[in-house]
Each structure stands twice: as structure tokens, then as C-alpha cells.
């Protein structure tokens, strides 16, 4: 495909390459696909179902109004958020009892499925409207956006509340089904009965959440899946054609095809989109709300109070109470698989984005897609005091090259020619839809700094009657939240760099003997086809043990020459040219070489590894151009620059230092690598590390290099030559073929009143305002925190603009400008209503990760728990004062925060029993983790796979997930748990032998291999399972390290450690945790 002009050249659309293909593929043999020329392999199949479903779903939904749905999902509706009531006296049993029963059975199945966009949303909106305080709110609320729809919905909603009332705490949620209608009624009673009564009111909203909608938001996965439909990215190594071929090409090529922005997707999506769209209208309004209260609330001052669990005042009783809480009624994420359309702005107001993990299609009409940038709160507090009162973080997650949904309009490319993009002459902010043109268009006011600029003559345009420029809708930079400008000379210190990939392979004894070297060579060899085409793609290769071996690839038709650099204390490159050559010229000799390397070093007896020197040498080779350095490392670097000692062992022997000093081992051993990394970054060298090891490699120290250069660490521990090569290959392939940019610089600007406090992520920072990203790709996320330096006016908007200057793999210099404009508020309740759970949690996660190396684990856990408690306390104190102090009241938007906080406290990074490297890896992973993967990482998805064939009717490919609690695991079951990184398959010891035979090809638990390679056997179960795994891979952009876990051995224990809702030796159960939180809040209130 238009490799040359590609992706972006085509101008308008730049779809999400990588995955797009697949999605389309399924959908309708989209044009893209055809272009790519890749067959629509199996992947197609899986994807197909997904997409259709999302869209189709809506339809049905619309067609059948709320009823059926509601009915079906009763359980969901019930509990909602909030409150977990510990039961005080009254709240107690009642709630649970009725609902519980329903709940349990129903939730899993019914809820997800049933939850359609429309219904939930409706409910929520109404709820809000309703509950608001008796007085004014309701009306107001209604009047606003929601007016029309809400009202109708409201009706629906109330019922929900009702059930609640019955049992205040439990609420309808679970009772769900019936609840819908009752709500109203219920609420009253509730009110009457208890202090909680208000809750009920409040609750209703909450209830909604619980009811379908809320849950959906949090957990909707499906959306994700679509992006990846491509599936291709993950080719199961060689064999599975389905995954293999096209991926690479697509990523980028895809875009090009996009030429017709809409066009491409069109074919594929068209059909569906249309369906959707049509339906959308109806839904349109709904969707936004669906996702959460936010939608409904936008304008509302609504009653803060949401869900609360009745809690009896008695402290003493509380203790006992926890046990009485019905675990099934407490807030849990509920998945939704339907696709929603999200318009970023409506009525000149920012919409609250759907959950990051849900399946949505963005229509950019002024604000950027939430995939690219989303804020912890969708309204900006007017003052710093208000912010600190809320205890919530104000931060922005920027994923500047995030993959779009295949059916989204590609990002438009704007070329201003010689003059370059229009910028504010004071703050240098880029032109964006929120710059206000005045004086008949002759001047414009910068939305960031407020400066009034003259409009350049050739950019002048009259204003229309509405005060907008007449050409605003034709100019992407004036109507789209995200555009890409073609950079002029002014933005280049040199010609855009070529796409250079330098591979560095560990060939020390261990690496060779464990098969890591062979796996790396094979992965590289296979991935060559996925490198960008064209003369600008250069490659080089080197191997290392205690010396560094370069290969002269520039000798056409001759055997490569091995050049050894033996001085690992002061390295250099052995050649000036020919180490890095055009891929096209050396393809054959490179493949030959990769084939030979494992043989050449077959008998290598050198156990030492000069890792530091090797990367330095690789850097020197790349220094003239910059580029990506892909390192395959298997053992602890032991010689040369940056060599490390086995601190883990030292830590163990030196017991006296104890736990107090333990975290020091998670800090880099010294500054050598950090300094090197800084130099790498300066010369635009981005380092990715593939750590294929069976021992301690001190990731804490070496991850500094990728962390500073915009790279990432891939960790395969313990490396298995049997099961890991597939993942290694797919990781590498995705690494080099995903959308990415080089020599990037990023800066975030915001309106006066706020200022950027800190950036965090994988980058190098040399000056306070900018961050340097030698490499940036679609999976990298940067967190930006803000602080107030002034006040905002109540009705003003705060603009946030992220500008990323980068070079595409095809050598074009671009400036991607991402804009977000959010309303400012001085109402605390608005802040809570507009809070973004995913973003806030991601923020917590990253904060925790940054603390791990500098604080003891217990401090970190305490810190994050306190963050959670402080927020809830603030809410309780300022927004839910009316409710009983015996109730735990959770803001609707953040009702899952306690659960995720608990899960975080029990995650690998914060667990006491983890290995140092596991923890360090976790830290490095989290640092650049996208929002959409933040929650899954700590609260994985678990699905039963022993009954796959049972429910054929399900339109969703993935079975409903079940809570992470051992109660839900039975001995005769088989479960798949995935967190975006690892996939654990747990096999109960009573598992059905027939099922085992079908899935694994062995008749009994005992016959299972220790290392898993998931094969596809000729039976439905196996096919289904493979489809599921592939689907997850697509969703997560990750191949997953599949491992078998058996009850009763360490692997089983490992699996069980993910059951975060369970009580563990060092941690509370979910219910206990809620009680703990509640008690803490009460203490504070007192």
C-alpha cells in the first residue's frame, strides 16, 4: 500500500493501523484488508462476531425498549454502587437476602448481555434527575441535556431505586429485574425507614449504576477488541497464518489506504456503522449517559449522594457485620460488549467519555478522542482549594498515538505549507477549535494564554453570524480536537531520521542453552517482513557475550563478517559504514546470519554478559541517525560498563537490612545506566528490551534505559524455549509494526490558571517544559499532572493542548496536536460526578509504581489506601452529608475505586512475596501503561472455559467474566484469567477429562504438560477457546503468556493470588476492605 506516502500522506485519515485491519477484515472484507492483501484468516472470524455484536446489539436494544432488558438484568440494576452496606441493624439482612438470590444467578449472565446502552443510560439519567434534592435540582437537571430522553428514562429508573428501598442497602441492584419498576416505590420506603432514605434517593442514581449501565462502563471490554480485530499482530508464530501475514503491513499501510478516510472503514464497517448510526440516532443521546452518571449529570448539581450502604452506627457491630455483607451485592465491574458512539462535544460542551475499556467509537467534534487524552475529571475545579478538598488527583493521561477504532474518522493532516501551522505568538500554542476569532476574524484570542493575535493575512476568514469562522467546518484544525500538522523546516534540526532498527542478541552460554538466542533469532528473522518497507528502513545486528560482535552486512552476496569489539569498558563501533544498512539490500544475508547465529555460538562457554557495553556499542552504531535498539538479554549483566551484581542474592543473605531497606533493591544499582540512557535519548536512540531469562537480571537497574528512551521492557520469566517463542515473536512483531514515531518532543500546554506540574512515563526530560521521546508508539502513555496557579471563572473552559512533534517511520515530520477543553466548575459535586474512574485509577497505579522503589511496600499500600479513603471521605463529607453516618457512601463514578484499590494493594508490585525482578518489571510496565490496561492489570478478567459449548446463544465471543473470588472457582472447572500480560489457565482437580482431552489433548490433569502451548484441536471447544484467546490478544494488543495452573501446586497458588477479593494472609477480603474504608471514613468524620 502506499508505503511511500502512506499512512499519513493520504492525508485525512490515519486510522489505527495495526489493528484496524482485522476489525475491518471481519466486518466486511474492508478495503483495507484487500489492500493489505492479507487473507482474512481466522482472525477474521473472531472479529466478525464482535463487531457485529456491538452494533447489532444497539439495534436490538433500540427496537426493544427498556423492558426486556431490564427484566433480564435485574440483578445488575440492583446493587450498584455504592454502598456496600455493612448491615447495620436494619440494612443488614434485608438487602441481601432478596436480591442476593437473584443477583447471584443473574448477574453473570443476564447483566452483561442485557445491559444495553439505552436502558441503562436512561435509567441513570433519570435517576439523577430524580434523586436530586427534592428542591431545585431535579428540574434543572431535566432541563439540561437530558431533558427529553432522561425523562423517559427516569421513569424507568426509579423503579430501580425501589428495590433498594426494600432493603436499603442491597437495593434493587441485585434484585434488579423486578426493581426497575418498584424503584420509586422502593425509594420512598427506604426514605421512610431509614436514614438511608435519602440514600435511596441518592441511590437511585447509584442503583442505576449498579444496574446495567454503570457496570458496563467500567468494564466494557468489547470496544477494545475491535481495534485489534486485526488480530494479525499476533501471529501465532509461524503456523497460524491468520495472525501472521498482514499485520505488519497493515499497521501502517492500512492508513494509507485510508486515503479515503471514511472510505476504508466504510466497506467493512459501513454496513455495521450504518446500522449503528441509524440506530444511533435513537441511542445517540443515550450513549453518553449510558456510560455513567456523568452523562446525565453534566450540568446537574445533582445530589451528590449516591449509593450508600446502610451501616449501623455501632462500631462494635461493624466488626461483626462485615461478614454479613453479601459479597455478591457489593460493587463489581460488569462487562458490556456493545459498541457506543461517543461524540466528544455536544452543544458546545464536553461530553464525559465512556470507560476506557469499553467499546466505543469516537466522533471528534472539537475535543480529542479520549483514547488520546483523558483527564481524571471531566470538569476542572476553578481553584486549587477545591481540588485539594476533593482529594482527587488532577492529571491527564496522554496516549498520543493511541490506536483509533477502525470506524473512526482518521486524524486529519493539515499542511500549512512554508509558513507552518498557525500558533499563538505568545505561548506558541497551536491553532485549535477553541481559539476565539474576533474582530471579524482579523484577530484571535488564544484559549491557552489569552493573548490576542493578529490573524495572518492568508489565513483570514470572515466570521459567520454565530461568531465562528465561516470556514471552521472545512478546516480540521478549527473543528477537530486532534489534527496533525505537516512540520516545516523550522521543526527540524536535521532531516527526518530514517527508520533504523538495530537488534542486539545475547549469545552468552545461558542464552544459547536455554534457547533464548534461537528464539530471538527466529523472531527477528520472521519479523523482518513486518518492518516498514522502503529505502528508509535500515537494520543492523550485533550479538554479545563478554564481547560485542558486530556483523558487516554491507557486503552484498558475501558472507557477513563478524567484527568483535572486545573492550567492554570503553566501547566503540568497529566500522563506520555497513553495520547498519538498508533492509532491502541485506535481507538475504541477514536472514542467513540469523539462521547461523545459534549454530555459531552453539558451544559458547562464555557465561559473562556485557550488556551495558553492548547497548552502548549499539548506541554508537545508531548515533549518527538515531533509531530503535532492540535488545534480547538473558542474564545479569556481569562485565563491562554498567555491569551489575546479583543484588537479590546479597539482599537475601544480608537479612539484617530487612524489610526496611528492601525497596532499595528496586532502585537502579548505580547511575551508569541512567547516564548512558540520557545520552541515548539525546541522540534519539530508543531501547526496547526483551528479557528472556531464568534468573535474576536486576530489571530495576536495566529498565532505566528503556524507561528513559521511550522504550519498554518485555519480560519472559522463567523463559521457556517451548512456550515463549510465540510470544517473543509476536511482541517483537507488534513492537516494530505498530504505529510509532521517532525523535519526538512532546509538550502539554494548558489555559492560564493551571500549569503542568510533572510528566511521568518513559521519556527523557532535559528542559522543564518538554519531554523528549526518542521513540513513541501507540501503546505508550504519559501521565501529566497539573496544579493551579490561578483561578478559573465558573463558566469558563480550561483548554489543554498536547503537541507531539515526531517523525513517522516513513520519514515525515509531523506535529500532532491534541486538544481538550473542559468546563470549569466550583461545585465539588460536579467534580465527583465528572470523575473518571479509569483515569484516576491509572493515576493511582502510576503513583504507586513510582513509590515502590523509594518506600517500603507497607507504606505504599497505606498510601494508596489513603488516597482512596480521602476521596471517599471528601465525598462523604461534602457531598453526602445528609446520609447516615452508618452508611458507606460511594460516589457513583468512583464506586469501584475501593475494589481496584484493594486489587492494587494485592498486585504483584505491592505484594510482599514477589520476586524483585517481578516487582521491578511491574513498575516499569505500569510507568507507560495505557489507561485501558490499567484496571485489567490489577483486576484481571476471569472467565470460565469449561462450559464454552454450553451457551451457544451468546453473541459476544467472550463468556462473561466472573468475580475474582475463590468462591467462584469450582474444582471441576477450568478458568482463564488474563490481565493483558499473562494468561493463566486454571484447571480444577476434578476437571472433566473429556474437556481436558478436547482442550489440551490429554485425558487427565496429571498428563498436562508444565509448559503450555495452546494448540487448536479439531473440536468445538478447542476452537472456541482459541477464538477466545485470540480475541483477548486483540483486545489487549498482547499475545499473553499462557501458563497452566493446577490446583494444589505452586502454579495453583499463583493463580489464587489473583483472587483479589479473597482474604489473604497479608490482605483483607473485599468486604473487609470496604468495612475498613468505611471505618476510616467514619473516624475522619468524627
Amino acid at each position, binding site marked *: 500500500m502506499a508505503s511511500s506516502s502512506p499512512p499519513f500522506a493520504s492525508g485525512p485519515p490515519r486510522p489505527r493501523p495495526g489493528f484496524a485491519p482485522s476489525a475491518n477484515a471481519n466486518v466486511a472484507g474492508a478495503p483495507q484488508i484487500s489492500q493489505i492483501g492479507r487473507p482474512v484468516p481466522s482472525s477474521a472470524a473472531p472479529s466478525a462476531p464482535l463487531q457485529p455484536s456491538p452494533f447489532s446489539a444497539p439495534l436490538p436494544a433500540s427496537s426493544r425498549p427498556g423492558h426486556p432488558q431490564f427484566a433480564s438484568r435485574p440483578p445488575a440494576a440492583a446493587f450498584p454502587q455504592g454502598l456496600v452496606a455493612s448491615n447495620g441493624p436494619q440494612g443488614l439482612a434485608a438487602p441481601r437476602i432478596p436480591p442476593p438470590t437473584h443477583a447471584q444467578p443473574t448477574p453473570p449472565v443476564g447483566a452483561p448481555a442485557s445491559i444495553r446502552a439505552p436502558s441503562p443510560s436512561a435509567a441513570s439519567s433519570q435517576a439523577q434527575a430524580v434523586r436530586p434534592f427534592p428542591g431545585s435540582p431535579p428540574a434543572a437537571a431535566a432541563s439540561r441535556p437530558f431533558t427529553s430522553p432522561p425523562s423517559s428514562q427516569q421513569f424507568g429508573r426509579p423503579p430501580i431505586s425501589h428495590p433498594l428501598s426494600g432493603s436499603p442497602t442491597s437495593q434493587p441492584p441485585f434484585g434488579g429485574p423486578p426493581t426497575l419498576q418498584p424503584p420509586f416505590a422502593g425509594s420512598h420506603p427506604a426514605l421512610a425507614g431509614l436514614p438511608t432514605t435519602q440514600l435511596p434517593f441518592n441511590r437511585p442514581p447509584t442503583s442505576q449504576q449498579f444496574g446495567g449501565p454503570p457496570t458496563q462502563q467500567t468494564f466494557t471490554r468489547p470496544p477494545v477488541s475491535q481495534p485489534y480485530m486485526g488480530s494479525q499482530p499476533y501471529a501465532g508464530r509461524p503456523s497460524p497464518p491468520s495472525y501472521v501475514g498482514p499485520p505488519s503491513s497493515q499497521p501502517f499501510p492500512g492508513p494509507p489506504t485510508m486515503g479515503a478516510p471514511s472510505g476504508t472503514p466504510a466497506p467493512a464497517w459501513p454496513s455495521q456503522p450504518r446500522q449503528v448510526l441509524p440506530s444511533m440516532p435513537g441511542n445517540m443521546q443515550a450513549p453518553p449517559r449510558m456510560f455513567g452518571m456523568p452523562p446525565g449529570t453534566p450540568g446537574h448539581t445533582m445530589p451528590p449522594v449516591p449509593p450508600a450502604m446502610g451501616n449501623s452506627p455501632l462500631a462494635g457491630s461493624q466488626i461483626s457485620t462485615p461478614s454479613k455483607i453479601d459479597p455478591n451485592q457489593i460493587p463489581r465491574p460488569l462487562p458490556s460488549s456493545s459498541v457506543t458512539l461517543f461524540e466528544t462535544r455536544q452543544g458546545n460542551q464536553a461530553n464525559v467519555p465512556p470507560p476506557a475499556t469499553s467499546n466505543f467509537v469516537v466522533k471528534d467534534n472539537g475535543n480529542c478522542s479520549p483514547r488520546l487524552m483523558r483527564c481524571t475529571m471531566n470538569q476542572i475545579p476553578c481553584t486549587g482549594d477545591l481540588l485539594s478538598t476533593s482529594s482527587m488527583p488532577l492529571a491527564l493521561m496522554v496516549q498520543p498515538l493511541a490506536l483509533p477504532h477502525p470506524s473512526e474518522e482518521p486524524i486529519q493532516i493539515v499542511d500549512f505549507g512554508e509558513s507552518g501551522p498557525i500558533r499563538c505568538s505568545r505561548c506558541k500554542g497551536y491553532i485549535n477549535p477553541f481559539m476565539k476569532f474576533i474582530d471579524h476574524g482579523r484577530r484571535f484570542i488564544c484559549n491557552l494564554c489569552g493573548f490576542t493575535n493578529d490573524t495572518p493575512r492568508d489565513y483570514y476568514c470572515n466570521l459567520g453570524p454565530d461568531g465562528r469562522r465561516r470556514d471552521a467546518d472545512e478546516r480540521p484544525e478549527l473543528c477537530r480536537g486532534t489534527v496533525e500538522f505537516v512540520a516545516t523546516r523550522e521543526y527540524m534540526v536535521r532531516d527526518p531520521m530514517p527508520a533504523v532498527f538495530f537488534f542486539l542478541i545475547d549469545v552468552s552460554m545461558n542464552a544459547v542453552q536455554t534457547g533464548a538466542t534461537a528464539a530471538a533469532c527466529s523472531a527477528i528473522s520472521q519479523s523482518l517482513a513486518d518492518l516498514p518497507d522502503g529505502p528508509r528502513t535500515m537494520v543492523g545486528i550485533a550479538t554479545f557475550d*563478554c*564481547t560485542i560482535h*558486530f556483523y558487516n552486512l554491507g*557486503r552484498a552476496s*558475501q*558472507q*557477513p*563478517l*563478524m*567484527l*568483535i*569489539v*572486545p*573492550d567492554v569498558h*570503553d566501547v*566503540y563501533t*568497529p*566500522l*563506520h*559504514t*555497513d553495520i547498519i544498512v538498508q533492509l532491502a539490500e541485506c535481507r538475504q544475508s541477514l536472514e542467513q546470519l540469523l539462521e*547461523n547465529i545459534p*549454530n*555459531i555460538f552453539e558451544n559458547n562457554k*562464555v557465561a559473562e554478559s556485557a550488556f551495558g557495553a553492548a547497548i552502548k556499542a549499539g548506541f554508537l552504531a545508531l548515533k549518527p541517525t538515531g533509531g530503535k535498539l532492540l535488545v534480547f538479554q538473558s542474564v545479569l549483566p556481569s562485565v563491562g560498563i554498567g555491569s551489575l551484581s546479583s543484588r537479590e542474592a546479597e539482599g537475601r543473605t544480608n537479612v539484617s537490612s530487612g524489610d526496611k531497606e528492601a525497596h532499595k533493591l528496586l532502585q537502579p544499582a548505580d547511575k551508569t545506566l541512567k547516564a548512558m540512557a540520557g545520552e541515548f535519548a539525546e541522540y534519539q536512540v530508543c531501547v526496547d528490551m526483551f528479557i528472556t531469562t531464568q534468573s535474576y537480571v536486576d530489571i530495576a537497574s536495566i529498565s532505566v534505559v528503556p524507561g528513559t528512551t521511550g522504550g519498554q521492557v518485555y519480560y519472559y520469566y522463567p523463559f521457556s524455549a517451548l512456550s515463549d517463542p510465540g510470544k517473543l515473536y509476536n511482541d517483537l512483531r507488534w513492537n516494530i509494526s505498530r504505529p510509532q514515531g521517532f525523535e519526538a518532543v512532546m509538550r502539554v500546554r494548558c489555559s492560564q490558571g493551571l500549569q503542568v506540574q510533572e510528566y511521568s512515563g518513559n521519556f527523557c526530560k532535559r528542559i522543564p517544559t518538554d519531554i523528549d521521546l526518542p521513540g513513541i508508539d501507540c501503546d505508550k502513555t504519559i501521565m501529566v499532572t497539573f496544579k493551579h496557579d490561578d483561578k478559573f471563572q465558573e463558566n469558563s473552559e480550561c483548554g489543554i493542548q498536547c503537541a507531539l512533534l515526531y517523525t513517522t517511520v516513513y520519514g515525515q515530520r509531523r506535529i500532532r496536536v491534541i486538544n481538550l477543553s473542559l468546563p470549569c466548575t466550583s461545585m465539588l459535586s460536579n467534580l465527583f460526578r465528572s470523575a473518571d474512574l479509569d483515569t484516576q485509577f491509572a493515576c493511582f497505579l502510576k503513583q504507586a509504581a513510582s513509590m515502590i522503589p523509594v518506600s517500603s511496600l507497607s507504606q505504599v499500600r497505606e498510601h494508596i489506601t489513603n488516597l482512596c479513603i480521602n476521596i471517599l471521605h471528601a465525598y462523604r463529607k461534602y457531598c453526602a452529608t445528609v446520609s447516615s453516618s452508618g452508611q458507606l457512601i460511594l460516589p457513583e463514578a468512583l464506586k469501584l475505586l475501593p475494589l481496584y484499590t484493594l486489587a492494587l494493594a494485592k498486585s504483584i508490585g505491592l505484594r510482599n512475596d514477589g520476586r524483585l525482578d517481578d516487582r521491578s518489571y511491574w513498575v516499569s510496565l505500569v510507568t507507560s501503561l495505557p489507561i485501558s490496561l490499567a484496571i485489567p492489570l490489577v483486576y484481571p478478567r476471569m472467565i470460565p472455559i469449561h462450559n464454552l459449548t454450553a451457551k451457544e446463544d451468546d453473541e459476544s465471543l467472550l463468556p462473561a467474566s466472573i468475580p475474582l473470588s475463590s468462591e467462584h472457582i469450582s474444582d471441576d472447572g477450568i478458568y482463564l484469567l488474563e490481565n493483558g500480560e499473562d494468561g493463566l489457565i486454571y484447571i480444577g482437580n476434578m476437571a472433566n477429562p473429556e474437556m481436558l482431552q478436547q482442550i489440551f489433548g490429554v485425558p487427565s490433569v496429571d498428563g498436562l504438560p508444565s509448559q503450555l502451548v495452546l494448540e487448536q484441536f479439531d473440536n468445538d471447544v478447542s476452537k472456541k477457546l482459541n477464538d477466545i484467546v485470540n480475541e483477548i490478544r486483540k483486545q489487549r494488543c498482547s499475545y499473553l503468556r499462557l501458563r497452566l495452573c493446577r490446583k494444589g501446586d505452586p502454579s495453583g497458588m499463583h493463580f489464587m493470588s489473583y483472587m483479589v477479593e479473597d482474604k489473604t494472609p497479608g490482605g483483607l477480603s473485599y468486604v473487609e476492605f470496604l468495612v475498613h474504608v468505611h471505618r476510616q471514613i467514619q473516624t475522619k468524620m468524627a
Partner: protein
Amino acid sequence: MSDDIAVGGGATPTPDPDGLDGVRMTWNSWPRSKVEASKCVIPVAASIAPIRASPFLVVLPYAPLRCKPPCGAVLNPFARVDFFAKIWICPFCFSRNHFPPHYAGINETNVPGELYSQCTTVEYAPPPLDAAAPPPPPVFLFVLDTCLIEEELGYVKSAMRRAIGLLPDHALVGLITFGTQVHLHELGFADMSKIYVFRGTKEISKEQILDHLGLSSAGVRHGAVTGAPRYTKGPQPNGLHPSTSVYRFLLPASDCDYTLNSLLDELQSDRWPVEAGNRALRCTGVALSVAAGLLGACVAGTGVRIIALVGGPCTVGPGMIVSKDLSEPVRSQKDLDKDAAPHFHKAIKFYDNLAKQLVNQGHVLDLFASALDQVGVAEMKVAVERTGGLVVLAESFGHPVFKHSFKRIFEDDEQSLGLAFNGTLDINCSKDIKIQGIIGPCTSLDKGSLCADSVVGQGNTTSWKMCGLDRTTCLTVFFDISPSERSSQPGIPNPQLYIQFLMHYQNPKGQMRLRVTTITRRWVDGSNTEELVEGFDQETAAVVLARYVSLKMEMEKEFDATRWLDRSLIRLCSRFGNYRKEDPASFTLHPNFSILPQFMFNLRRSQFIQVSNNSPDETAYFQMLLNRESITNSVVMIQPSLLSYSFNSPPAPALLDVASISADHILLLDAYFSIVIFHGMTIAQWRNMGYQNQPEHQAFSQLLQAPQDDAQMIIRDRFPVPRLVICDQHGSQARFLLVKLNPSSTYNSAHEVVPGGDVIFTDDVSLQVFSEHLQRLAVQ
């Protein structure tokens, strides 16, 4: 000294001035006292050729008998033997030694070879300790410069190919190429071409090199690598472990023949970019360090030649002689005189250390420098000379001087250089004789007690290491006569003095040999001038003076060589000439002294003294050859020989004078470094008209051919191959002849020139003027 020559059979086809012993002395009668010795002006010195080839050499297949320690002298014809008591008395220390049991059969009529009176030089070839072990193979490590233009690289490659073809199959071969960086080729790596790359800018220690090559741990098995570098006598029997790392880098020629050739095929000029206005970066120093380090680890103690082929100056790293910036010229002699060569001393120091390392390992550095500009021979000289390496300086790798010389190293025929390794020279002297030192290709081992306080050259020792030597290698030993109180007492009148040279070495076949030369000379009373005069060897004296002066020029700042030589000559003439005081006309010299003034005249004008006419590299080159060549050859360097060819008369020696030029003569000048065939004007005209091709002018053709043939004769025997210049009178190349001639007629005296003759455009004094002055000054 010819009377000392005791040649078996007495049938000497051609009188050999050096004789079997290969020893020539300035004074064959030694003054008794220090004062008298100093009055002799010319130092008491001997020029020895320790392993001179001779058809009459007696080789004894057993171990020598040695005098009891500390003397250690070997039994020789001058020992007094008591056949009855089976006792011999050492002529050096007068100890009495019993013959061992296996000499039991000794009697007057049955004496072992070493006691034959004519066998003052014998060679012992005791059977090796381990008869089964083959002698260690020779090792050749090529160090090849790649900062060359394609043409030169082509020449050097073809020279290398030829050399590889000539190597004995069992010889071990290694290859290092260098430019900006050093490439050490691992020839034993089968999978692909594997090269260790060392940076050119950084000096690396031997230990680092071993570490980098992964030899340090493997080396534990070799004695060589562990501990400090140490001198090993002879090859270590375990020096080569077939299984060890040796064979990674050094492979038998028969095994790596193909590899080497393909490597050469692929070898390209250094690929690092050369910025405009700069020289190529060339790290000769590091390359040699790496070579030395590698060999130290792998084959310490065995015979190794590092053959460096260098095409330009070292511009980077240790041993750098000039910066890469072209605006900085390579140091000239003037710079050195003014001490304005910024890199010179550092480089010398570096090569000095390298020399020490190589000597410790017993390895030889040969230098083949081929470039129009200097390459740093002056700095590298120390490493070459101390290790007994060969040196060849040429303009290009395509030049016959290089091509033919290079080939000679590997040839194994009559012209073979007889390259030997691992020599150790020990000298025993009669008491009252001490040794000041040696000038020549050797290194002092700093041991022994018979050393003089004043040191000349490699001194402070009676034992010297000669890592490499060949049958023409020649050393100059300086003696100091310092009679002790006791010996000056008239009571012990021993009229003879004895000197014994013990030369251990590994011959070209790899066998260990000990050659013992014992000589005797007479003490004379210093006041007896006649006896001293009789024993004077003016050729040797001229050469020794030349070597001595060169050394002083090198060692002493501000040393005025010409003045020193003049003074010495005047003193000598005053002392040994016959004259009446203040009467120059009465001055005559004994025939044994008669040519010396002429030698001195030519020496003063030679490249050895007039160094400012040459680059430091050339000077160093000339000096190294002067120091290692035989007396005969050295005399030619000082005073070239001139042959004249004409019709109707056989070739005849001609005066080294411009007057010898004649239009109808052909002159053949042998100036050692160059050979000039000079056609008189008429001859040249005839030749240009092609008479030589006409049958009726066969004689002319023969005349033309004769000097060519003679030149080839000279060239064939000489190493390095001299440069052959064929020129015509008044041609530009004629300067090669004119510069050597006595300017008896200059432009000042042009009117006296005979037709067909020539003049020299110079202000130099002629021999006649020089002699007149000498006479005048000598009689004062």
C-alpha cells in the same frame, strides 16, 4: 687478522676478511693500560658476526663442557689440557676442570673437535631433551596497513599472496590489519570471517588484550601468560598446545592458505572516512601492541616474526608521530634538533616499551615501510633494532626494493637470509678486559659482572638477547681495558688475551644451537706504537667510528659529529703519523692507516653525518643497517665503490671522484643502499641510437650488459635489496652518482674539466683540500 683465520684444509677460495670467526677488531694488538688505550683514539672494539655461515664450520653433536661457575667458559682450543690427569685449565679464569667420564678416552692423538687448534669456532648441537617433539614451528604474524590507496593495497596484497605461498607448511600464520582500528583476524573460526576490533586511539595493556581476546583464562595453562612477563631461554617445550587458543589466531600455513587468500581478496582499504585536509587515521602503535600481546599469550618464547607492512605515518593513538591534520608536517630532522616534534618522545617511549615486551617474549619485529612520506621508522627503530628485526624502507609496495626484499624473507634457498631466532650472546673475557656495550641489533640483559662503568650502546651486561638474527647480523662490541692493580704487576706476564663469544640460538630449522667462538689477541705495551700500528684494521676502525658517532649523535644533544670526527682523525694522525713537527709536507702514514682519512672524508659527507639532508626516517634506516651489516658492507655505505667499464679493458675500480666520469665509460656505483649504473654521454647516445641491437656492435651490447650483470650480482646477495638506478650523464638521476663523488672539480674549477667529464655543483671541500688541512693540523 687474517693470520687468525684457521680454516680447515687451508684452501680458501676467496679470502674472507671476516674469517671463520667472523670477528674483526679495530686493534688486533691491545694496549695494556687504560691511558694507552685512550691515546689510541680509535676505541678498542670488535665487530662480530655471531652466526656467520661458513662451509668449514664444525658442528659437534653433543653438549659443551663448561668451566665451573662463575666463569662458565666453554672448553676451547686455548685451554691447557693435561691429558694424563684428564684436566683442563680454563684460559679465562685459570680454574682447573676435570673432564667428565665420557671424555675418558681423551689423549694427545684423540682430542674432541672443540680442542682442534683451527676450531676456534665450533657449534654445539646437543640432541634436544625431548627427541620426539618436533622443533617449534616458526610463527609469522602479518600486520598489514589498510590505509592505502587501492593501487598500493593491490601491491601489498600480491606481495602477501606470494609470501603465503612461500611459507613452510608447518609455519604458524596470523593476520592483523589496521587502519583507524585494528582488526585481528581469527583464522581458526570456521563459520565466517571473524575479526576482533581494537580501537586505534587507546593504548591498551597486554593484560587487557589478553582479556579482550579471551586468552587470559586459557593462558593459565601456558607458563607464558601467568605472572609477569619473563624472559624464557629458548622455546618452551610446552609453548604450543594444539588444543588451546593458539590455533584461534595462528594457524599452520597449510591450513589457512585458503582462508588467508580469501581474506586478502576481500580486504578493502580502511573504510573510515578521511576528512578533507586530514591524513587517514592509522593506528600503527595499537596494531603492534595487539600483535605483541597476542603473541605473548600464545607463543611466548618461540621464534616469531611480526611482519609489519606500513604505508604511512601513525596518526592516532600510542606511537603517533604526527597529528591527522595535514597542516602539520611530519617532523623533520630540524624539528628533532630543535626538539620541536611534539609526538616524538612519547612515541619513542611507547616503542621502547613495546621493544621490552617483545624482547621478553623473544619475538622479532620486522618493519616494511613503503611510502613516499615518512612512516615513523625513526620512532619504531628502537623496537626493530632491539628485537633484531629487519627493516626495509621503500617508496611504494610496488617498488622492487620492497617486492624483492619482502620475498627474500620467505625464500629458503642459497640466498636465504638464514633467519634465526631467540639468540642469546654471552661474552667471556680475560681479566682486565671489561665490556662497555654493544652497538647493533640486540638488547642488554643487564647481567654479568665484567661490565665497564662507561657504557656504549647496550651495556651493563655480558649477556645480550637477540630475538632475531641472521647470518649477516653483525654486532660491535666495545671493550674497556682496565687492568687491576694486581695484574699490572710484572709477575704474571701473559702475553695473550682471550675472548669467548657464546651464541645460543634457534636456527632456521628450529633447532637450538650454541656457537662458541674463542679468540686470542696479544697484549702490547702501549708505548710500542709499531706493534699497535701493525695490528690496526682501518676498515673496521672506520666502521666502528661511524657507528660510534651515529650513536653519539643520537644520544647526545648538540653533538657536533663532524668536528668530533675531525678532531679524532687529527689526534690519530698526530699519534700514528710520521712527520716532522710543523712540517705538513713531511707527513706520511703507515699503510694500515693510509685510507682512513679518505674514509673519514667520505664519512663526513655521508648520510650518517649529514643527517639534515635526509628525513629522520631515512637516517634511522641507514643507521640501523650500518649497525647490523658486516664491516665490508658497512665500508661500502661509508665509501661507495666505483667500477668503470669501457671498451678494451676489463672493469676496473675507479676513484670515487668526479674525475672518473667520462663520456665513453659506464660507471657502476655501489653505495650499498643504491646501485647506480651511469652511462657516459657517448655511451648513452649510442645506446639511444640502438647500436647494441645491431649484430656488428655486439661488443657494445656486452659493454652495456656487463654492469647490469654485476649490479644483479650485488643485488642478489644483499638485503634489503638496494635501489637500482640507471642513468645517463647529465640526466636528472645522475645526481645519485654525483652526490657520492669527491668534488674534485666543481663549478669553481669548471675550466679545468676535461671534455666528457663533469662537474659537481657544490661548495663542499674536495678530498685534496681535506687532506691538506689534515696534514697541516696533524703536525702541529
